[in-house]
């Protein structure tokens, strides 16, 4: 596929090519000539009514691509998806973002979109859990909730008239993410699914697949219902921030986190669609081979994962028939 920055020796290159060819034949579905560059003509049955989408144009009666990318067909719509495109948000998407600015009554987040997304103070639960009007004091204390450079998980609420995005983080499962690492991959690799929050019990790790390509892998944090917090607990909580150096994550947990993170890196280099199941399988493959965590980023493991995926998909397609 695109130039993998991996030192592959001859046999590895051949194996990888074979795996990719197998995957391509399996996903045929009239998409065999899917990748196009600028001015390539797109294969369409001109008698059927079709809609020209983004990245296409009518040139001398022929449908021609205007960007380099992959042709996608959805019912009658034909469009070209660019390869390094920014995230395309939809209402209700779960996204992970980084705070870039604390402004008046709102936070601005970077979410790999053309503009910064906005999280209003009113769309955020107050730390004490009480539903009330936000006062001027709340506005001044915004930094105690989120500061610059914090990683936050939220949901897309709506689009504003100028095209920018509004987010909301009302539920307890949204909010600040700590104790872990953030990975950045291409947005098109994360497809919309029923669940984006995954709690991997056997590892005790939280995995959040943001649809904007930001993936969070971190220690599991219990979702607390703030309404139940009583006086005793709140006194406890106010004492905790005074601790200067909270303990580091345990080594075992850290190993799990790094293994999962590397699995995600491998899958994104190979260009496979991310979902929790595939990530878990990759992690299990690496543990079954007793691979050193860092060796997961080596070329041999990449080739193995590609071959495994090709086999898995061919099995699935055989079952379907």
């Amino acid at each position: 596929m695109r130039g993998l920055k991996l030192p592959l020796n001859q046999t590895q290159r051949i194996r990888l090519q074979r795996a990719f060819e197998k995957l391509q034949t399996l996903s045929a579905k009239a998409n065999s000539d899917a990748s196009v560059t600028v001015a390539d003509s797109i294969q369409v049955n001109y008698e059927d009514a079709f809609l020209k989408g983004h990245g296409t144009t009518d040139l001398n009666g022929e449908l021609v691509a205007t960007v380099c990318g992959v042709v996608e067909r959805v019912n009658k719509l034909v469009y070209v998806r660019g390869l390094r495109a920014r995230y395309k948000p939809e209402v209700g998407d779960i996204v992970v973002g980084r705070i870039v600015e604390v402004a008046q009554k709102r936070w601005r987040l970077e979410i790999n979109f053309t503009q910064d997304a906005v999280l209003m103070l009113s769309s955020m639960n107050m730390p004490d859990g009480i539903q009330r009007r936000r006062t001027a004091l709340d506005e001044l204390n915004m930094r105690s909730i989120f500061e610059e450079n914090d990683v936050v998980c939220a949901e897309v609420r709506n689009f504003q008239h100028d095209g920018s995005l509004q987010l909301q983080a009302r539920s307890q499962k949204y909010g600040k993410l700590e104790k872990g690492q953030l990975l950045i991959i291409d947005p098109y690799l994360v497809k919309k699914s029923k669940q984006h929050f995954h709690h991997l019990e056997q590892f005790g790790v939280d995995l959040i697949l943001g649809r904007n390509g930001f993936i969070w892998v971190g220690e599991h944090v219990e979702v607390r219902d703030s309404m139940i917090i009583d006086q005793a607990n709140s006194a406890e909580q106010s004492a905790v921030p005074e601790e200067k150096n909270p303990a580091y994550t345990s080594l075992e947990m850290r190993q799990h986190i790094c293994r999962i993170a590397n699995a995600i890196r491998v899958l994104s280099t190979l260009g496979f669609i991310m979902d929790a199941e595939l990530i878990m399988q990759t992690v299990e493959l690496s543990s079954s081979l007793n691979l050193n965590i860092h060796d997961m980023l080596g070329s041999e493991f990449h080739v193995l994962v590609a071959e495994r995926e090709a086999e898995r998909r061919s099995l699935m397609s055989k079952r379907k028939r």
Partner: protein
Amino acid sequence: MVGLSAGEKHFIQGGIAQDLRSDGRKRLTYRSIYVETGVIPQAHGSARVRLGATDVIASVKAELGRPSGLQPDKGKIAIFVDCSPTAAPMFEGRGGEELSTELSVALQRCLLGGKSGAGAGIDPASLVVVEGKVCWDLYIDGLVISSDGNLLDALAAAIKAALSNTGIPKVDVAAETTGDEQPEVNISDEEFLQFDTSGIPVIVTLTKVGRHYIVDATSEEESQMSSAVSISINRKGHICGLTKRGGAGLDPSIILDMISVAKHVSEQLLNKLDSEIAAAEASDEES
């Protein structure tokens, strides 16, 4: 550079303290090095080195010139590094100039030795053609295409690879000429002399985060550093150059400890680099 939240910084520091970094590496493990030689056909030698997401290119051009009056039996070598604005947002416009100068000076110190030319990693005496009259001027240029930490190590590796890829054209000097006249030289297009790169050192940068030091830091880890020491070591285990960055003070015993750690790491690095360069040259000849 993108900022990091307090939680992420804590995670990185914890990883370094527990000897398990964010991508699973140990404190003294390098990322996989990927070397390609001959990437710039117009230059006499070139190489591209990828260290994780850090991507640098080094090129070597040789021109005939006059040796300086003070050292008539030595050629001249100049090393310059340029940080391309596409490497990182902070390099936009003139932002990369400070870093470029810093890298150039560090590389010059490590590879070129003192003012008199003594103790250089690259032997300038091998560049002279006619003593006092004609010598080769080597211009070594480094370009940073993508920056993800540890630029100095990557650049030193790229320069080593580029020099091993360099072919200096053979020069035929015309017969004896009198005192001040410039001898006629005939530059051959066919025959090339390979450079001897066994004496060229590599640079190992040790970044101190908290109480431990790591090798080959990514830019996230570099943002957490208190200080960094770059040590240039050659095959014999001798130190060819030493640079310290960062404002925090270091106890002298720590520096001595860092030097011994760097010596140990440099052996593995030299072997790995030599094998990668050999592999790159071999595949370069095939294609």
